[in-house]
């Protein structure tokens, strides 16, 4: 979307969104919320967040640009405004992040009318939570190496295999699933399914425990699980192409059907505040020249990211159409990681204190957030793979395989 002034409808919507968010601030959560949607562990967290997404959806802040036939608002250019306003208001994140940012855009692009009607509204309201079944023990960065097999039997597919790192799998009703339907071709042997998860026969969801001690993601086992052919998305053998659509949205190159929220205090403000209350040998970290330099470096990197997102929408200042979009995943995940790492360093002795310790700065946020940050530098194609893609697709260097 090229950057231009908001039209009148968009400006009115912006005002409406602002007013609605001001008047409908959610109640304080009954339990501690995780940092992002993919770390939601407990039913209490889920219920609270699902309730919030439903309210946002009913208010028109989610699915704003999705056609009305499929439960959306049918507008143009509203979603970005809604996302910005939710971020600005510092509201909780939307729990159905995979549904909104991956499943819905992919279904809208590749699905039949019936599939759109069946799957999109529940994803927007948050009533039906989605998870993603792309990663396998042997298919991480080499995503096309899928071993989960779907065999055609009449009008049905019988699925066997093993998916891992499945965020939200324990609450999910549906999964966007890539499975192998032919062993003849690596890429053209893949097919994309919209697969039932919750309570479905032959599907077992088991929580994986992360290095942080938190759950939130899972492994999913398929043992003769039956999926009707009506839940196949696009053609047999087109799975790789469809998955690329999903990943374009996942890696932040496109708008998605809803998002925003989740940020409260600006991360640099948090670091500065921390440096004012952290000491080394009796001296404030805010007065330590090395720490000051590192905080300012982070501030510059943060601001640079923000301004680069802005520049991506000024075609005259972009040399290659994918140059900025494909950087997004690497820069944001490493930015978050280095912010968290700096927080750990500033906290010093107190950085050893974890979630349960009452004296832990920011309730243990820094070590927790630092450890969690590896989820994002690894997921969605490791940052090493992203750098290959950037080097090859944007700079045109030889493929590293």
């Amino acid at each position, binding site marked *: 979307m090229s950057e231009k002034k908001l039209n009148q409808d968009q400006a009115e919507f912006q005002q409406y969104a602002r007013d609605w968010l001001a008047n409908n601030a959610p109640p304080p959560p009954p339990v501690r919320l995780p940092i992002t949607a993919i770390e939601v562990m407990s039913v209490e967290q889920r219920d609270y967040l699902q309730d919030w997404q439903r309210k946002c959806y009913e208010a028109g802040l989610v699915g704003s640009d999705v056609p009305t036939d499929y439960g959306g608002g049918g507008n143009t250019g509203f979603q970005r405004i809604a996302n910005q306003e939710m971020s600005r208001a510092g509201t909780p994140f939307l729990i159905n992040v995979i549904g909104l940012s991956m499943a819905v855009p992919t279904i809208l692009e590749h699905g039949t009318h019936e599939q759109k009607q069946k799957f999109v509204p529940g994803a927007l309201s948050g009533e039906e939570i989605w998870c993603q079944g792309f990663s396998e023990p042997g298919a991480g960065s080499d995503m096309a190496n899928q071993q989960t097999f779907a065999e055609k039997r009449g009008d049905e597919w019988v699925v066997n295999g093993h998916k891992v790192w499945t965020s939200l799998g324990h609450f999910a009703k549906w999964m966007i699933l890539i499975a192998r339907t032919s062993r003849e071709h690596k890429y053209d042997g893949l097919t994309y399914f919209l697969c039932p998860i919750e309570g479905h026969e032959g599907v077992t969801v088991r929580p994986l425990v992360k290095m942080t001690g938190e759950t939130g993601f899972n492994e999913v086992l398929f043992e003769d699980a039956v999926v009707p052919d009506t839940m196949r998305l696009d053609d047999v053998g087109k799975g790789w192409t469809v998955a690329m659509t999903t990943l374009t949205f996942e890696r932040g190159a496109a708008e998605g059907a809803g998002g925003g929220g989740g940020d409260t205090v600006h991360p640099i403000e948090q670091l500065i505040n921390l440096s004012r209350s952290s000491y080394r040998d009796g001296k404030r970290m805010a007065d330590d020249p090395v720490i000051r330099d590192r*905080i300012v470096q982070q501030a510059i990197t943060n601001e640079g990211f923000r301004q680069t997102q802005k*520049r991506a*929408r000024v075609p005259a200042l972009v040399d290659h159409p994918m*140059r900025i979009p494909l950087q997004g995943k690497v820069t944001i995940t490493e930015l978050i990681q280095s912010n968290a790492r700096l927080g750990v360093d500033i906290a010093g002795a107190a950085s050893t204190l974890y979630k349960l310790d009452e004296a832990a700065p920011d309730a243990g946020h820094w070590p927790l957030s630092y450890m969690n940050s590896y989820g994002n530098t690894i997921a969605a194609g490791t940052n090493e793979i992203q750098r*290959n893609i950037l080097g090859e697709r944007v700079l045109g*260097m030889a493929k590293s395989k």
Partner: protein
Amino acid sequence: MSEGIPAKNFGFGEDEQMLRDVARKFLDEKLPVQTLRDLVAKDPDAVYERGEPTRWDEGLWKQMVELGWTGLAVPEANGGLGFKLAGIVGLVEELGGHAAPTPLVATLNATYVLAACDGENASSALGQIADGATASLAVTDAKGSWDASACDVSAAPDGDGVVLSGTAYFVQDAAKAELFVTLAERGSELILCVVRSDTQGVSIARDHIHDLTRDQGRVVFDNVQVSGTDVVSEEAKSPLARAWASVLVTVSADLCGCAEWQLQATVEYAKNRKQFEHQLGFFQAVKHPLVNAMMEIDRARSLVYHAASCVDAGSDEAATASRMAKSAASDAGAFMSDRSVQLHGGIGFTWESDVHLFFKRSMHNQALYGDGSYQRRLLAETLIGPIEG
């Protein structure tokens, strides 16, 4: 332009794009890298051993003046075009991207300081610049203090005017400049005056610098008479402070242009050069650093346009944004320069390669008006507050 709020497209609209495209076409045609080499790097001994002046193409400069480039930043009221800084950035990126030896950046920076002076006295100099005069800032002391809080030029009151004695250091393109915007100490005050380079008592002592694409020198003032009308500011700090964001932005834009050239040249090399039966770019030890450099350049470039749009909008953020831009551009320039030589391998280390022309221009720009860590030290004062205790 809405007051205080930077434009959504950084103010980079059709006019700005046209200027940039004209500059790119002009420089691609007139100053391809081979022409630049022949001009500035024919003989390695000329500049570095025999101490000859760095060469530049005055004829090419005259064409730039005819294109109106010296008048771009001059306010309309003074006969210039009053072009937005965002547009100037596009032009200066091209200058950096061609490592063009011209006094344009020095002239632009002098223009910004003159335009920030209150009163009428600066208008004559601005008018001359709009008509094609070259200019440079002579505001730095022997210690290389970028904050212009002290200087080694004294101004003795003399009728309406002053008499200048002393030396201004690290003056950019001093040998090319016709006008010096000079910082001088009059009693306990710092003032700014305009001095023509051909004035009686003014002499230039050339610095022997590594950058082959510009010159730098000390401007020596030996009892130089300056009339009252050439004292452009009775109080130098405010105009310098007001103009400084623009000064940092132009140099940062030059750095970004330089770095982008280095990136593209190194990527080209990584595509063409084969070792171990593979193009160099196949190896991730080559590919990934180039991607990292690209991301650093992009960050810097975005911050430069942001800073320019803050200046254009009269935003309070301009000072902070411009220091962020200079920090990011200096660091991106340093990293890109480092990788450009290293990844070119043996050839990258030679005089024969083009890489060193940009490496040196970048290194000069990195130091100019303060490198990354200097900018961050000042930014910390604003963002975190002064050091206590």
